C-alpha cells in the first residue's frame, strides 16, 4: 500500500504515449546537448541560488559542532572518571578507607545520597506543582506575575546561602521537633532516638534540599501548565468540569512529561548538591533514623575530603564521583523511559 501511493496513477505512460505536439523544442535541445557531452539546459530551475545556502551551511555546521562538543565533553569526563577511579577497584581492600574494600565504603554514602534526594523530592514535588498550578491557573494575573518572579528569584540564590540558612536558622529550630518525634514516634525506624541536639541530621538536609529544588520544579512546571491548549481546557469546562476537574482532565495529563522532566532536573540538583549538605549535615555512619546524627552523601563526602586527599584516597573519591555520575545517568534513563512509554497518548501525533 505504501509503495502504491508513491507511484503516479498512470504508470503505463511512456514517451510513446505523449503526443508529438507535446514534445517541446526545449526537450530536443537538452537531448542534443547531452549527446555532445555538455549540459547547457534552458531549465531555469537548475540555476543555483546562493541566497540562503551559505546560511544553511553555517547553521548546520554550528549545530553539528555544538552537538559533537557536548558528546566530547561527556565522553572525556567519563574517561577521566574511569581512568582515575580504576586503581580503587584493583587495590587491596585493607588499603581502602574503612579497611573493608570499596563496596563497604561506598554503599552507605550511596544510600545516604539517595535518602537525602528522596526526602527532598517527596517534600518538594507536591508543593512545587501546587505552587505552579496556583500561579498558572488560580491566582489573579497581577499576583501571579509577582509570585512567579519571586519563585524565579529563589532559584538564583547560591547553595551556600541555603546551606548557611539551614545550619544557623533551620537546624536549631528543627532540633526540638526531632526531640518530640523521637519521643512520640520513636517506634517508627526513621524517627528512632536519641534525636540530635543540634538538628544537623539527614531530615534537615532533605528539607533544605527541598527548599532549593522547589523553585526549579515550580518554574518549569508553571511554563508547561501555561502551555496547555486552551482548546482542551475549554473542552473540560464545557462538559461541566470545575476548575480542579479541568486541571486534572486537561492540564495535568498534558503537562505530565514536563512535570517528570522538571522533577528529574530537581533530582539532579538534589543528588549533586554539595555545599548545602556539607554545611548542614554532621556526617557519620549510616543509620536508619533521620533524626539522629549520621549518614553522609557522596557529593559532600568528596567535597569535605578532597582538599587533603592524595594517592589512593584521591582515586577513591573520584570513584565515588563516578558512582554519582552513574546514579544520575540511571535516574535520567528511567525518566526518559517513563516519558516515552506514554508517547502515543501525549497528543504529539
Amino acid at each position, binding site marked *: 500500500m505504501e509503495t502504491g501511493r508513491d507511484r503516479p496513477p498512470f504508470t503505463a505512460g511512456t514517451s510513446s504515449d505523449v503526443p508529438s505536439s507535446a514534445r517541446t523544442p526545449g526537450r530536443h535541445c537538452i537531448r542534443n546537448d547531452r549527446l555532445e557531452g555538455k549540459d547547457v539546459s534552458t531549465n531555469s530551475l537548475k540555476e543555483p541560488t546562493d541566497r540562503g545556502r551559505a546560511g544553511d551551511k553555517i547553521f548546520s555546521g554550528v549545530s553539528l559542532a555544538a552537538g559533537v562538543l557536548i558528546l566530547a565533553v561527556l565522553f572525556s569526563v567519563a574517561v577521566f572518571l574511569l581512568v582515575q577511579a580504576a586503581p580503587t577497584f584493583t587495590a587491596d581492600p585493607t588499603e581502602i578507607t574503612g579497611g573493608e574494600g570499596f563496596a563497604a565504603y561506598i554503599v552507605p554514602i550511596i544510600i545516604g545520597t539517595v535518602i537525602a534526594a528522596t526526602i527532598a523530592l517527596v517534600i518538594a514535588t507536591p508543593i512545587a506543582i501546587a505552587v505552579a498550578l496556583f500561579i498558572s491557573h488560580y491566582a489573579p494575573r497581577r499576583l501571579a506575575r509577582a509570585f512567579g518572579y519571586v519563585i524565579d528569584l529563589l532559584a538564583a540564590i547560591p547553595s551556600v546561602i541555603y546551606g548557611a540558612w539551614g545550619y544557623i536558622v533551620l537546624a536549631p529550630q528543627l532540633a526540638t521537633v526531632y526531640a518530640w518525634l523521637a519521643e512520640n514516634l520513636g517506634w517508627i525506624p526513621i524517627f528512632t532516638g536519641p534525636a540530635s541536639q543540634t538538628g544537623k541530621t539527614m531530615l534537615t538536609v532533605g528539607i533544605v534540599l527541598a527548599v532549593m529544588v522547589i523553585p526549579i520544579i515550580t518554574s518549569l512546571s508553571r511554563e508547561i501548565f501555561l502551555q496547555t491548549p486552551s482548546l482542551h481546557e475549554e473542552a473540560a469546562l464545557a462538559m*461541566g468540569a470545575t476548575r480542579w476537574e479541568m486541571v486534572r482532565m486537561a492540564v495535568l495529563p498534558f503537562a505530565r512529561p514536563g512535570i517528570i522532566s522538571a522533577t528529574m532536573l530537581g533530582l539532579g540538583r538534589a543528588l549533586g548538591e554539595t555545599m548545602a549538605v556539607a554545611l548542614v549535615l554532621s556526617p557519620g555512619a549510616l543509620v536508619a533514623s533521620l533524626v539522629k546524627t549520621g549518614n553522609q552523601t557522596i557529593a559532600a563526602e568528596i567535597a569535605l575530603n578532597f582538599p587533603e586527599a592524595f594517592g589512593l584516597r584521591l582515586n577513591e573519591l573520584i570513584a565515588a564521583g563516578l558512582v554519582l555520575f552513574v546514579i544520575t545517568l540511571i535516574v535520567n534513563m528511567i525518566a526518559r523511559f517513563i516519558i516515552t512509554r506514554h508517547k502515543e497518548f501525549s497528543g504529539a501525533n
Partner: protein
Amino acid sequence: MSNRIDVKDLNVYYSKFLAVEDVTINIDARSVTAFIGPSGCGKSTFLRTLNRMHEVIPGARVEGEVLLDGDNLYDSAVDPVTVRGRIGMVFQRPNPFPTMSIRDNVLAGVKLNDKRISKSDADALVEKSLRGANLWNEVKDRLARPGSGLSGGQQQRLCIARAIAVSPQVILMDEPCSALDPISTLAIEDLINELKAQYTVVIVTHNMQQAARVSDKTAFFNIAGTGKPGKLIEYDETTTIFNNPSVKATEDYVSGRFG
C-alpha cells in the same frame, strides 16, 4: 422538560467593550437553530453566553437574562458548572483529550458526575453515545486507542459523542464543520438532523448552505462597523430568512451581496 431557551435583552461585554447588544431571542425546544452573519459579528460570543462559557475569558460578563425552561442561567445562585453540564458544547476545532483513549474521552464528562459507574454501564453508554454520533462502526475495534489518532471528522464526532454522553438538554455547536472536509461535514449534518429528535441544537455557521440544510430557524447577526457591537438583525423560519427576508441587510447577506 421542553428544553427551550429564551434570551431577554442580553448585552455581552469583554471588560468594557460591548460585543453584542440587546439580543432577545426565543429558541424552540427540539429544533435546530442556526446563527449566521459575517465574521466578528458576535454570533460565537453570543453562543458562548448560552452555557456560560463566555465568562471563562477574564473580564467577560453579560447583562440580561438567559432562561432555560424558565430558569435564569445568570441567577447569582446558579453555578456555571451546573449550567455547562446541562448545555453541552462542540467547538470549532475538534478537541478530544489527547491523553485519553476514545473510550475515556466519551466517558470524561460522565465520570465528573458519577465516579462509580459500573463497567457494564460504562460500556453500554460508550456504545450508545458513539452510535448516537455515528462513529461506533468506525471505532468499535479500537476504543482503547488514543482519540487523537482519528481523522478530523471522526474527532469532531467523538466530541459530539462526548457531549451527548452526559445527556445534556441543549447542544451548542460553534462552527463544528469549519475544519472538516465535505464528506465529514455531511456526516455531521446528518447527525445534527438526528440529534434534534432528542436535543435542542444551536449551531453557529459561516456556511449559509449549511444553515439552509440543517436548521429550522435562522438568526442573522450583523455589525454596523469595526468596534461597534454586534446585533441580532432578523430571526425567523430558515425558509423565510433565505427566500423572503424582511430586512434588507439579511437579504444582501444571504444572497451574497456582502459579507
